[in-house]
Every structure is written in structure tokens, then in C-alpha cells.
């Protein structure tokens, strides 16, 4: 299998890891399309592959048997799915699915584990990402109990904006409602309000970020700490 050259890889973890770490993982990277809706990790089912995103966004969702669900976190080119395998787990309760289509590399879990055994720098880089992801979900918890729906939506749009190219985010209100675990008209109303403030432009199935700085200010400290942690510990992002 031809190996991707490190300088051309868009996944942030794979591009910042040192040459030895990259050499350990590169032979196992298999390019894959990540179409919208593709389930990368099925909750309660043994891990088979981890996915490094180059583009696109995945949602990590928790749900009950009767269908109540909320998004616990999201991941894009700054990370990978299936990272529970790096922590000694064989499966996890959360489901990870592609919410904005993209492409990336998949790697068999056993190959990922053995690459991490061969390269300590690779292992440590990936574990630092897990640390940042935990801070992201911690802020999601804080945001869920402290912020208005507009505030939560603002934070969420910023997190998506960090992970897409350009200013357009293609999402329906229905999808946003599922992610934020609110009734759909609450999303419509919240979008209407933050569009009224001039931060975004909302069209059917698409949201354009117009004034990112104002959106960051509006998100009121619920956005920014995990992102700063990533830059401090790993490298450029967003």
C-alpha cells in the first residue's frame, strides 16, 4: 500500500508527530471516504478501526435505549475516532458517526496499538489529544447547564467552523436539534436570533459564519479553553 507523505497529510495529529512516530503508523494508514451518516464506532460493539480525519466532522453521541440522545463531543482533522482503544478499552458506550462528510485514514485497532508500542512519541501525541477531548466534553457539560440555547448553538458552530474549510457549514435544523437535544423550533429560533445579531447567515441546510469574533464573545468563555489546550500541547488547530 503506498504511504501518504507526512507533509501532505492534513490530519493535525499525523502532521505534528515526529518522523519516527509517523513512520510507525504510516504503513497502516488506509485512505477512506467518510460519507455523512457513516457510523465509525458503534456504542457497545468492539472497536475494529480508528479513523484519522483529514476533512469532515464526526459526532460522539450518547443515547438511551428509548432513543433520547445528545452529542457529547465532536472531532475533525485535529483528532481521531476510536481513541478508547488507546486507553486499554475494547469498546465504548458512545457512538461516533460522520455528521459532515469528508475523508481520512482508517487504521485497524491492532495496528494502531502496535504502532503506539513501537513509538512512544506517537502514543503520547495521541494521548494528549484524548486529554484535550476530555476537556472539550467537560466544557460541553458546563455549557449544557449554564448556557441558553443560543449560547450553546454559538459554541457548537464555532467548534464546527474550526474543523471545516471556509465559512460555510452544511447542516439542517433537524440535525442541530438532535445534536443539542432540544426541540427543533428552538434551533430555528436560536438561529434566527444570532442571525439577527449579524453573527451568521442561515439558509436552508447551510449556515455561514459572518462574524466569528462576535460569535466567540457571545459564546462567553464556554468556547476556547480546550482549543487553547490543543494548541499548547499539540500544535496548530482551527
Amino acid at each position, binding site marked *: 500500500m503506498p504511504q501518504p507523505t507526512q507533509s501532505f497529510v492534513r490530519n493535525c495529529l499525523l502532521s505534528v508527530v515526529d518522523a519516527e512516530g509517523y513512520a510507525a503508523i504510516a504503513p497502516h494508514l488506509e485512505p477512506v471516504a467518510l460519507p455523512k451518516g457513516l457510523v465509525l464506532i458503534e456504542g457497545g460493539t468492539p472497536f475494529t478501526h480508528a479513523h484519522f480525519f483529514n476533512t469532515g466532522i464526526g459526532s460522539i453521541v450518547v443515547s438511551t435505549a428509548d432513543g433520547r440522545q445528545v452529542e457529547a463531543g465532536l472531532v475533525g482533522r485535529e483528532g481521531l475516532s476510536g481513541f478508547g482503544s488507546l486507553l486499554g478499552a475494547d469498546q465504548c458506550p458512545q457512538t461516533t458517526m460522520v455528521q459532515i462528510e469528508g475523508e481520512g485514514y482508517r487504521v485497524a485497532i491492532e495496528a494502531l496499538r502496535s504502532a503506539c508500542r513501537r513509538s512512544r512519541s506517537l502514543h503520547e501525541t495521541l494521548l494528549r489529544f484524548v486529554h484535550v477531548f476530555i476537556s472539550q466534553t467537560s466544557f460541553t457539560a458546563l455549557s449544557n447547564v449554564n448556557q441558553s440555547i443560543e449560547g450553546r448553538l454559538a459554541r457548537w458552530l464555532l467548534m464546527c467552523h474550526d474543523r471545516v474549510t471556509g465559512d460555510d457549514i452544511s447542516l439542517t435544523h433537524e440535525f442541530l436539534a438532535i445534536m443539542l437535544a432540544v426541540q427543533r*423550533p428552538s434551533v430555528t429560533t436560536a438561529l434566527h436570533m444570532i442571525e439577527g445579531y449579524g453573527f451568521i447567515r442561515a439558509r436552508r441546510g447551510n449556515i455561514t459564519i459572518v462574524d466569528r469574533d462576535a460569535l466567540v464573545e457571545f459564546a462567553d468563555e464556554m468556547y476556547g479553553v480546550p482549543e487553547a489546550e490543543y494548541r499548547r500541547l499539540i500544535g496548530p488547530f482551527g
Partner: protein
Amino acid sequence: MSRFFLHQQIGTGIIEDPDGTELADLAAARSEAILAARQLLAATLLAGVAPLGTAFRISDDVGNVLLTIPFGDAVPDGFPASA
């Protein structure tokens, strides 16, 4: 299943529902509207501001208005206690 749109009346204007939702029937759409009105009212109550909207207008996918649900229908009789 049919697609229902929950447009929100705000004063003299309207917040359009661009996407709609697939639901079993009009009764299910009514339940959705009641739940949504409660969530919107609760959010404004917590923020200490007046609600933006006054009612949901439920329409089908060709724009016929099937039902109007005033936000007052979403709260129990006698709420708030001082009213």
C-alpha cells in the same frame, strides 16, 4: 408519515421553519408544537425576557395551514399563579 412545518408567529412576522419534520400525523405535530412552545417559554422565563413568539402555525409541505397553537395552550391552566 408526513412532513409538517412549525412556523412561529412573532408579533406581525413569522420565523419560518425551513426544513420541517417527518411525523406520524397532525396529532404528533401538535405534540411537537406544545413541547417546543414549552421549551421556548422556559428559556425566556429563565432569561427574564418576554417570549419572542406567540403561536405555532403548523403547515403541510405545500404551505396549507393545518392548525394554529397559541403558546398559551402549552402551559397548564392557572399558570402563572398570579395571572
